[in-house]
């Protein structure tokens, strides 16, 4: 009887152990880690995609000729590209450029796209875009038009666009040329408000500085408050109620001075909002055009 139970239990344990160990083996297979990292990347879980890709690099050392099943690119390239893109999406530009730079002097089929992604990351990083020595190779020169496009975009990002026609000739892609020209025109047509003018307006007519910066209701309220207390002060002084007159004059002056300073600040806020809207429109357009980079679709 006991031996029968032991036999049954052993059989059951054997099946369970087999199933569990099979799962573990499958989980650590490079093919499956790659598929999982790719899945996470496609789902937008860039942090876990980068962690899985790093785990994959640890488990499976680089082998140039090794193609992962289901991938059109060599294993090492695919993983480096996913890492570069994941870090780029996580705004970790240092690590992103590090992985994309691995492609620059290689024979990878992803080289051109990765080089463009490298330039894009440098652009996103906010540093002034400069010609990296890695591009000064004979085969890198065909990327120069793309680099010039990003150089102009970088200038636009810094709210600077002087003499674009000459510079645009170096950008060969007509859609990029059009996009940059349009945004340059948009930048040059921005009408900034002068804080000094706003302050002077409010000093002459209380609240008019705020109206000048399109804060209409704030301007009207400031006008009402300042003139009301000004009138009360005048009326009380006229009736020889000097204490009350002084009190109203003090409150009126407090509002008057605050409104002048507030109008100058309001002009600065107006300019800041306008710049933010411009940047937001620029990046929306870039996203719509996929940053003028051909998409490597890992997610199909």
């Amino acid at each position: 009887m006991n031996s029968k139970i032991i036999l049954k239990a052993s059989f059951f344990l054997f099946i369970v152990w087999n199933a569990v160990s099979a799962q573990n083996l499958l989980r650590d297979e490079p093919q499956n880690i790659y598929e999982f990292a790719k899945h996470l990347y496609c789902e937008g879980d860039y942090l876990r995609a980068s962690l899985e890709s790093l785990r994959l690099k640890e488990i499976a050392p680089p082998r140039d000729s090794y193609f992962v099943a289901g991938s059109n690119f060599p294993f090492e390239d695919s993983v480096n590209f996913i890492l570069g893109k994941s870090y780029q999406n996580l705004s970790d530009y240092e690590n992103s450029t590090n992985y994309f730079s691995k492609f620059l002097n290689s024979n990878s089929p992803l080289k051109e796209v990765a080089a463009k992604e490298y330039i894009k990351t440098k652009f996103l990083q906010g540093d002034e875009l400069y010609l990296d020595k890695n591009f000064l190779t004979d085969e890198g020169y065909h990327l120069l038009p793309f680099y010039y496009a990003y150089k102009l975009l970088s200038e636009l990002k810094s709210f600077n666009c002087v003499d674009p026609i000459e510079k645009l000739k170096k950008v060969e892609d007509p859609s990029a040329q059009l996009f940059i020209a349009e945004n340059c025109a948009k930048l040059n047509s921005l009408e900034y408000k002068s804080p000094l003018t706003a302050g002077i307006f409010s000093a002459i007519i209380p609240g008019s500085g705020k109206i000048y910066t399109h804060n209409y209701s704030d301007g009207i309220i400031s006008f009402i408050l300042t003139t009301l207390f000004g009138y009360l002060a005048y009326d009380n002084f006229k009736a020889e109620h000097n204490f009350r007159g002084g009190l109203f004059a003090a409150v009126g002056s407090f509002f008057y001075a605050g409104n002048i300073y507030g109008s100058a600040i309001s002009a600065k806020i107006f300019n800041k909002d306008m710049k933010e809207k411009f940047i937001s429109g620029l990046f929306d357009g870039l996203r719509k055009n996929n940053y003028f980079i051909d998409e490597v679709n890992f997610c199909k």
Partner: protein
Amino acid sequence: MRVFIILSLISFSLITAQTSEAIRWEKNELNYEIPVHSSQKEMDLNYKSTKDFVIKPLINLYWLLISNVDGDNCPFEPSCSQFFIDATDQTNFLTAVLLFSDRFQRDSNFLNRLKYKRTKNHKLLDPIQNYLFE
């Protein structure tokens, strides 16, 4: 014996489930009053620095004459007095007074509410950082 154990297990789980349901659905006393968080501000009479001797009497006077009378009606977060305290911390006294005056005038405007973001307390988010420029 086996039947007895199974029956007791089933009946026990049924009874405990019933008890938790009964607690969940018992009658509750309702209170429709809106809780008042801080209508009265306590005066801060703790003076530690020279700056405190200048700013704290002004704040206390503002609380006594305006804030406490007005109640919990300030639409902004931080409140005007806190805005002034933050302004004195991050700028000089004169700039802080001018910023406070501007804030006080915006406080009186009922038509500008849409341009501010709302906090979770439905107050208008308007910190001093929005008005500091290099």
